[in-house]
C-alpha cells in the first residue's frame, strides 16, 4: 500500500468520533476599528513607521531620499516614485539583492496588526520584497481592514495569490540573549506612505 493510503487508513481507524466534534461557525471577534490611527499605532509596535511629506508638496522620491540619505539604488514598482533603477533591470530573484530601497504598493493593510499585504501581483519578482535593505510601502487608507478575521474573510487576495505575505514591520530577531534587533535577514526598515 502507498504511504498516502496507509496514513489515511490509519487516521480513519484511529480518529475520534467525528459526530462529537462539529465545526464551529466562522468567528469574527474583537475590535472592528479599521482606522488609519489604529493601523499606525499597531505598525509602530512592530517596528514599522509612516513616511509623510515633511513639507507640503514634498514628493515621494524626495521623502525617500530624505529618509534614506545613503541609499544609492532605489527601485520602484509604482508609478508614484521614479527611483534610480528601472524595475525592468530586476530579472532574477538574486538581482533584487543590490537594491537599497524597494518601493511597492500594498493592496490592503490590517489595522489590528499594522500588517501590509504583498503578493506576486505587486512584485516584479517575489524576492523583491525581501532582498532590498529597506522597503517603502504605498497604502491607501481606504484599503484597511479591521483585524485578522475580517482580513481572511473579506480580502480575495488570500484566495488568488500563489505567494502572499503579510509584513508587519521589518525583519526582526531576539535570538541572541533576548535583545530585540530590527533588520535580521530581511528588510531593515519598513515605512508606509499613505495615498
Amino acid at each position, binding site marked *: 500500500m502507498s504511504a498516502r493510503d496507509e496514513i489515511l487508513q490509519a487516521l480513519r481507524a484511529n480518529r475520534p468520533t467525528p459526530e462529537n466534534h462539529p465545526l464551529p461557525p466562522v468567528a469574527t471577534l474583537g475590535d472592528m476599528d479599521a482606522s488609519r490611527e489604529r493601523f499606525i499605532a499597531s505598525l509602530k509596535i512592530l517596528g514599522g513607521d509612516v513616511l509623510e511629506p515633511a513639507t507640503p508638496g514634498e514628493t515621494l522620491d524626495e521623502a525617500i531620499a530624505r529618509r534614506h540619505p545613503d541609499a544609492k539604488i532605489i527601485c520602484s514598482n509604482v508609478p508614484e516614485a521614479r527611483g534610480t533603477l528601472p524595475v525592468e533591470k530586476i530579472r532574477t530573484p538574486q538581482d533584487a539583492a543590490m537594491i537599497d530601497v524597494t518601493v511597492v504598493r500594498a493592496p490592503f493593510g490590517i489595522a489590528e496588526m499594522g500588517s501590509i499585504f504583498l503578493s506576486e501581483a505587486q512584485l516584479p519578482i517575489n524576492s523583491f520584497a525581501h532582498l532590498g535593505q529597506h522597503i517603502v510601502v504605498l497604502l491607501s487608507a481606504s484599503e484597511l481592514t479591521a483585524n485578522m478575521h475580517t482580513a481572511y474573510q473579506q480580502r480575495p487576495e488570500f484566495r488568488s495569490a500563489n505567494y*502572499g505575505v503579510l509584513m508587519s514591520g521589518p525583519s526582526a530577531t531576539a535570538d541572541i540573549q533576548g535583545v530585540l534587533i530590527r533588520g535580521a*535577514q530581511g528588510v531593515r526598515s519598513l515605512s508606509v506612505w499613505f495615498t
Partner: protein
Amino acid sequence: MSERPVNHARAAEHFLEDKPHLQFHDERLWDMRQKRDAQMHILPEWQELREEASRIKEHTLSRLPEYLEQFEENAKKNGIHVHWARDGAEHNRIVGEILKAHGAHNLIKSKSMVTEECDMRPYLEKQGVRVTETDLGERIQQLDDQLPSHIVVPAVHKLTSDVAKIFAKDYNTDPNIRDPHLLAEAQRQAARPVILGADSGMTGGNFVVAETGTFVVCTNEGNADLSATVPNLHIATIGIERLVPRMADLGVFVRLLSRSALGSPITQYTTHFRGPQKGGEMHVVLVDNGRSARLGMEDFWTSLKCIRCGACMNTCPVYRRSGGLSYGAVYSGPIGAIIDPTFNERKYSTLPYASTLNGSCTNVCPVKINIHEQLYKWRRVLVQHHEMPFVKREIMHMAGKLMGQPKLYRAAIKATEVSLSTMPRFVLYNWLNPWGRHRENPHPVKQTFNDWYRKNRKPGKEGTPEAKK
C-alpha cells in the same frame, strides 16, 4: 527498544550549576510569559479565541483524512507536488530524491521541527547536500551541533558570549563581541551569499488550509520568505496535524500564535503559499511519523492540537530551571514531555516526571490542551508498562507494602524517626534517597501522631483504631 531513558534530572542538575546561564534563562522565559499575559489582557475575546481554536482543531483532527485529501486535491490543482511520508526515513528519502532530480547541493532552510524529528540534516549532508539554517537561533544551534533547546527561540539557553565564541570559529568574528547587534549583523552578512547562491529552499508550515490548498509559514526574520523566494525550488515539510478547514480559521490562529509565543501581536512575516512562484517548483511533504497512531490514543490525541507556540515551556518552572537540552529530545518542556513518549516510550519515560503538575502549561495553552493532566496520565501508563526507574519503582513498591499494613507502617515510622536523629549522614543521604540530594530530610519528631492519639484518646469510648478492627 534498548535505549536508556534520558536522565533529565541529572542534566538539569548540570544546568543548575551554571548560575549566569540559569538566571538569564529563567528570567528571559518568564519575560516572554509576562508579555504573553499583557497581550491576553488587551483582548477581551482571548478566552473565546482559545475555545474557538481548540474546537476547530478537535473538529479537524476528527476529520483529518477528509481534510488531507481536500488539501491535496487543491494543492495539486495549483501546481504543488504533494508527497506523503510514513516516517522520518521516508521523508528524508523523498527530500533527497527531489534534490537529486534537480542536481541541487545547496539547501537553505527555515526552522522546521519536523525536519528535526526526521534528523534530516545528517542524511542530506551524507548525500552531498550543504544544508544551511537561516533562522539566527537555529543557525547558532547548527554551528554548535546541538538540538534546538526551545521550539520558538532555539538558542535561548545561550548568552551573547557563547554566540560570540561560536561565530568567531565559523564567521571569523571577534570572540569578545558582547553586542548582540554586531553578532546579528555578522549572521546577516554571512548568510546573504549563501542565500543568493542556494539552489533549493525549504520551509516548514505552521498552518495548512484544506479549502484552498494553502500553507502558512510564520517567522520574524523573514528567513522563510528568503528561503522560498530566492531559489526556484521550494520544499515544505509539514506534519499532517497542521490542517485547518477554512481560510477564515486562520484569523483565530494567527491572532493567538505569536501573542502566546513571544507576546508580540503577530510574527513580522506571515506568509501564505498557494502555488509555485513563476518559473519555480513547489513540493509539500506531509509527514505522519507517529501522528496517526497518536490520534488513536484516547488520553493523548488532543496533544495533536498543538500549534508549537512554546507558551507551556515559557511558563513551566521545571523547564525554566532545567533548559530544553536536558530533555534529550526534539521536543522539550511540557508539550515535549507528553509527545516524546509516543516516539519512544522507554527513552522518554522520565520526561512526564519533569513537572510539578501545577497546571500552568494548561492555563496558557492557546488551543487548550490539558497538558498537566496528560503528564499525570503518562505516569500511569509508564508504570503499567514498567517504564519506571529502579529506585522510584522499588520505593513505590515498598511504600505500597508498608501502607497496606498499619503495624508494619507504624514500626517503620518509629524506626525512621529514630534513624533520622541517630544515623550518620552518609547512611541517610545517598543514591537510595534522591529526595535528600538537594534537601535536608525532615526533622525527626519526638512523638508520632499515632503515639499522640493513643495518649490523648480515652480507650474504650470510641476506641483506638486497633480496637475498631
